Every structure is written in C-alpha cells, then in structure tokens.
C-alpha cells in the first residue's frame, strides 16, 4: 500500500510542477514525471510477490509470473510520451525563437 501512496505522491509532484512552474522546460519535465508516475501505477498493479518476469525461456522452471499486459501497456505509453515530449520540446524551441524567453509569464499574446 505504501508503494501506491508514494506513486500517487509522485503524480502529485508532477502535477504541482506543471501548475506552478514558470519555465517551459520545467513544465515539460513535470509532465514527464507525471507520465512516469502513471506508468509506475500500471506496473504496480501487475506486480505479484515472488513472481518472475513474464518471459518464456527454455531452461526456466514454471514459476508464477507477473502480469505481462500492463507492461505492454507501459511500453506503448512510453512511446506515446516520447512523441509528445519531442513535440513539446520542438514547440518550446520555436516559442523561444519568437519570444526570446522560456518564462511563461512573458509569453502571453493570448489572453484568457
């Protein structure tokens, strides 16, 4: 249970960063932290005590395996996060080109 709580705290750390930081790069990093916390959640749901990794091999004795499906989900979501992060970084670079700053309080040509 303590693991789930820690994981939830990690999610909140990321959310706190997204909401309060004023630097574009720090916002992107906070988003990544949030994503990792979500991935960790999924891995924790799949975890079983005394279970091995879910890979069939020739020599291994048949033991309890952890659930492989959430791990596949996490792999997919990592790929997605990679894409989104690259997109955000590209946008941040272009924003820096236009405004010469990473500070979001100075980037406000759109109001509301």
């Amino acid at each position, binding site marked *: 249970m303590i693991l789930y709580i820690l994981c939830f705290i990690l999610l909140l750390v990321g959310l706190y960063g997204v909401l309060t930081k004023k630097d574009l790069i720090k916002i992107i990093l906070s988003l990544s932290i949030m994503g990792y916390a979500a991935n960790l959640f999924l891995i924790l749901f799949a975890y079983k005590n005394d279970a091995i990794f879910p890979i069939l091999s*020739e020599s291994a004795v048949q033991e309890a395996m952890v659930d492989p499906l959430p791990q596949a989900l996490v*792999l997919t979501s990592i790929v997605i996060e990679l894409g989104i992060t*690259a997109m955000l970084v590209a946008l941040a670079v272009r924003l820096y*080109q*236009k405004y*010469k700053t990473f500070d979001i309080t100075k980037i406000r040509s759109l109001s509301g």
Partner: protein
Amino acid sequence: MKSQEGMTIIVKTVTRISVWLIFVYGIYIIFHGHLTPGGGFGGGVIIALGFLNVFLAYGKEYIKKWLNIGLLHDLEATSAILFVGIGIIGIAMTGGFLANFLSKGTLFRLFSAGTIPLLNILIGAKVGVALFLVVWSLSLFHIDEGGEQ
C-alpha cells in the same frame, strides 16, 4: 586557431570504435525481439542513440556528409508502409489485420514466430531512424532566427 566542429579527439576516437558495437547490439535486440526482452522499439532506440553518439561527437557537418538525410526520411516512411502492408496481407490471407500468415516454426529458434520478427525489424528501422531525425530536426532550428514582437 582553427575552429573545429564536434568534441575532442578522445571522444571522437572512442565513438569511432564504439558506435559499431552499439549498432550491432541494437540489431541483436531487434532480431531477438520475439525471444528476449526488447524488440523493435528497444533496439530502434539503441540504434538511434548510436547515430546520436556520432552526431554529438562529430557535429552537424560530418553527419551531413556521412548520412543521406533524405534517404533516411524515405526509409522511415517505407518501413511504415511495409508494416501496414504486412497487416493487409494478413487480411488477405487469414482475414484479420496483422494476422500471422507465415509458419510459426519451433519455439526458441531465431527464425520462428511467423511475422513477428519481420514486424520487429520494420519497427526497429522506423524507430531508429525517426528518433534520430527528431533530434536532427530539433538541431536545425536556429535559436536566433525568426523573432517576433
């Protein structure tokens, strides 16, 4: 003093030796995707990191001479099209998108598991090239150009 692109001679030498090992390891991971942990995405990331290693050590101009960037774009698109193509062949042969239509072989052999190794190779090529091209495109932005306001 001659301004030289890239990092010092030490880094360049180490890179020159190690980059091929990185590529081989990435290809190994891709080809054993159906047997061991890893697979197309993991191996592709390793290959992309190999390219990035050269990029960081030698600089932009060297990469332009060494690699044909347009060809890499083509490779990326082609591997995606082939992936969809294998899926469509699956529809034609067995009725399900991406269904297996090759012999499954024996378990734990390198050439087994039907279409999965093929798909892994395509994903590996796609990811390896795409990830490198993302960083490459980011490096093409000139930070001082195009200011507004």
